[in-house]
């Protein structure tokens, strides 16, 4: 049978029960018969079961000039045990129970710690468990069930209603809605039609569809998320350097303090060498550098797992620490504060103009053209056949629709009369782009398009403001337009007319006033994202790991910025709290154990010191696990 820490603990506790009973009976001055000899035998066994591994590990470390927590436990228990042996055979009072209970508490601490460490790490496994285990893949004429690792890019896969999408790919036929919450944090199901991307591990709704596999294995979005989270969980926050420094000196320093404790009590007080030894052992046993080491790493582990489940990927601890200190957030406008695609917002004149314009624009690649076509389709307007189509770059398009010559474009292109131009100016002043629609020789209508702000933008910006964070918008638009949108959203500062390269310069200027976060799209804004203290990329690509920016939002939802800030702040606060606890434990625990406060009746026996030590690691771990339940913007409890 393999002796795990749990088994060692239970076995030792069982052996020590009579000693525990004796400790309690002592209060009434009762001595169990033969307890001294029983203690000798039981403690010898416990030493063998419990202390063996610690002593072996400590000895191996000592040989290479290192000391660690195991050294402290080994020395603490050995000293009490060996002295008690000597005392037993020379007829003095014995302290076997100290050695036994030090070990029992240390074993309990180790076992609990292992368990909780596994719990903290489990957040990552939860992500992995999302993956489907097999896929229905087309082989020849039939669909066969294959394990996931046999699926190759290019395979055609059938996804049934309620089934999991096995890998990343694109719909080829059928339609459905897919719940992507586990990957993107977006709670509403997303409608999918042929040509749309689907992400592995997401859950299909009521439709069924065929998809072509594009990314498999290590390349899927989920695999990449797991990779980033893993990296983040094992990364270090700068605050951890403190513990690195402390760790090297900690154990030898504790040993020295303990020797001093013994010498001072023995020489300068009347308590005698035995009591002095017990104080010295308490010092050794209570000092625990482990809590210090666990303080940062476990908090990071829990936080990065939780944030990934909410669609926020934080790449490492350094970013987390920086994000907690952000004073200014800079937003790119197009595609970040706004949807990024112009939409038809106003229509003036003949209602038929939209249908005519859309019929023509269906032949054009221009982004505005796409917006007109989409709006027409949405409004149920028919697209009519077009002949003699021609386009003039940057001006407009024309063609024959239903026997009429139709032109769509700028004012000059259609030679619009003044009355129409005045109406158009009014729309342009409101920040809209206007297209004229001309049927035969007369203008019949205007289509006004605008890149609308994201629906959540205003709320997010006002929330940021209430937290005392300055918001800035950078855009290539003209100043007038920028200010208009800025006012609409309630942004603090709008910088307009910037070329892509200039955004980075502006950012550098803003950084002079304090740490700055930049929110933008992962591909176009890469320079600004990497320059900012914290780069927040609005997820668009699938290559999460390579995307610029220390934080990647899996959805184009600005609430993710708040989530990222909330999480960073809470995690960093938790780390500081953990470090504080761990330090306080030692700062208070060591003097108390050394008997400094014994004159007011406060002192610790070695076994109580061991209990306190075990509890310190466990309490730090518990505190980190609490991060799973703290309140985060726009997220319920997990």
């Amino acid at each position, binding site marked *: 049978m393999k002796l795990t820490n749990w088994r060692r603990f239970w076995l030792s506790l069982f052996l020590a029960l009579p000693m525990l009973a004796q400790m309690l009976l002592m209060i009434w001055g009762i001595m169990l018969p033969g307890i001294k000899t029983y203690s000798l035998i039981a403690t010898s066994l416990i030493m063998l079961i419990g202390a063996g591994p610690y002593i072996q590990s*400590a000895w191996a470390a000592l040989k290479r000039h290192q000391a660690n*927590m*195991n050294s402290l436990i080994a020395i603490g228990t050995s000293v009490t045990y060996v002295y008690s042996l000597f005392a037993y055979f020379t007829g003095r009072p014995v302290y076997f129970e100290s050695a036994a209970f030090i070990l029992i508490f240390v074993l309990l601490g180790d*076992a609990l710690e292992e368990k909780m460490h596994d719990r903290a790490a489990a957040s990552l496994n939860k992500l992995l468990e999302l993956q489907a285990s097999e896929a229905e893949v087309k082989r020849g004429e039939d669909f066969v069930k294959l394990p996931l690792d046999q699926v190759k890019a290019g395979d055609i896969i059938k996804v049934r209603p309620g089934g999991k999408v096995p890998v990343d790919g694109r719909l080829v036929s059928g339609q459905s809605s897919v719940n992507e919450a586990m990957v993107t944090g977006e709670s509403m199901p997303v409608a999918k039609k042929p040509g749309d991307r689907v992400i592995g591990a997401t859950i299909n709704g009521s439709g069924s569809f065929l998809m072509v596999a594009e990314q498999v294995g290590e390349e899927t979005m989920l695999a990449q998320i797991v*990779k980033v989270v*893993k990296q983040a*969980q094992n990364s270090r926050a700068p605050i951890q350097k403190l513990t690195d420094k402390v760790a090297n000196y900690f154990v*030898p320093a504790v040993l020295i303090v303990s020797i*001093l404790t013994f010498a001072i009590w023995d020489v300068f007080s009347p308590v005698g060498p035995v009591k002095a030894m017990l104080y010295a052992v308490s010092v050794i046993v209570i000092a625990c550098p482990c809590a210090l080491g666990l303080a940062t790493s476990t908090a990071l582990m829990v936080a990065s797992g939780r944030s990934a489940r909410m669609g926020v990927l934080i790449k490492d601890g350094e970013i987390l620490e920086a994000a907690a200190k952000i004073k200014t957030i800079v937003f790119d406008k197009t595609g970040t504060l706004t949807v990024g695609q112009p939409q038809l917002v106003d229509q003036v004149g003949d209602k038929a103009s939209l249908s005519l314009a859309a019929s023509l624009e269906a032949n054009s690649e221009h982004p505005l053209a796409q917006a007109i076509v989409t709006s027409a389709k949405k409004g149920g307007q028919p697209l009519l056949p077009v002949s003699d189509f021609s386009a003039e770059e940057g001006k407009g398009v024309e063609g024959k629709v239903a026997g009429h010559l139709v032109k769509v474009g700028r004012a000059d292109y259609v030679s619009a009369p003044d009355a129409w131009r005045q109406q158009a100016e009014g729309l342009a002043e409101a920040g809209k782009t206007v297209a004229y629609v001309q049927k035969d020789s007369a203008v019949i209508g205007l289509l006004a398009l605008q890149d609308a702000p994201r629906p959540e933008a205003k709320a997010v910006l006002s929330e940021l403001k209430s937290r005392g964070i300055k918001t800035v918008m950078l855009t290539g638009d003209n100043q007038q337009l920028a200010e208009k949108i800025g006012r609409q959203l309630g942004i603090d500062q709008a910088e307009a007319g910037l070329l892509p390269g200039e955004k980075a310069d502006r950012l550098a200027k803003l950084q002079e006033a304090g740490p700055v976060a930049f929110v933008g799209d992962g591909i176009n804004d890469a320079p600004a994202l990497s320059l900012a203290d914290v780069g927040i990329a609005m997820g668009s690509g699938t290559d999460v790991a390579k995307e610029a920016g220390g934080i990647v939002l899996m959805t184009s939802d600005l609430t993710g910025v708040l989530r990222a800030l909330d999480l960073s702040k809470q995690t960093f606060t938790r780390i500081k709290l953990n470090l504080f606890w761990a330090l306080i434990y030692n700062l208070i625990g060591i003097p108390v154990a050394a008997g400094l406060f014994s004159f007011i009746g406060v002192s610790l026996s070695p076994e109580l010191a061991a209990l306190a030590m075990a509890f310190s690691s466990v309490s730090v771990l518990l505190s980190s696990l609490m991060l799973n339940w703290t309140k985060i913007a726009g997220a319920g409890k997990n």
Partner: protein
Amino acid sequence: MLVNGLVILAAAALIGLIIWWFFGNFQKSSQQADLANGRQEGQVVVKGGYEPEVLYLKQGVPAEVTFKMEDKTACLSHVVFSSLGVDKDLSKEKLAKVQIPTDKAGEIDYACGMDMFHGKIVVR
């Protein structure tokens, strides 16, 4: 009086010994990984620390380092390469293999789960 003097002397000697032993300038154990069939394999024994503490790898040759767990305490149960995103639970895997990228020369640090024990792999 004599006993007290002896206690103080012994304590001072012990403290001196501790300072010398733990903070003295001792050589760290180091080793070069074995090279065979265009691959290199290193082994680090985990027992009260990492042996060797410094493992040398040749640049450009694919490398794998095996961590051999011989310690039964919780302290050393994890080995964490923070720069590689690797965290191996040695209490579950007695022989844990870690692939080390050798495309760039430099030092790769690793530590136990609590960041108390440190080891190093040097690619050169």
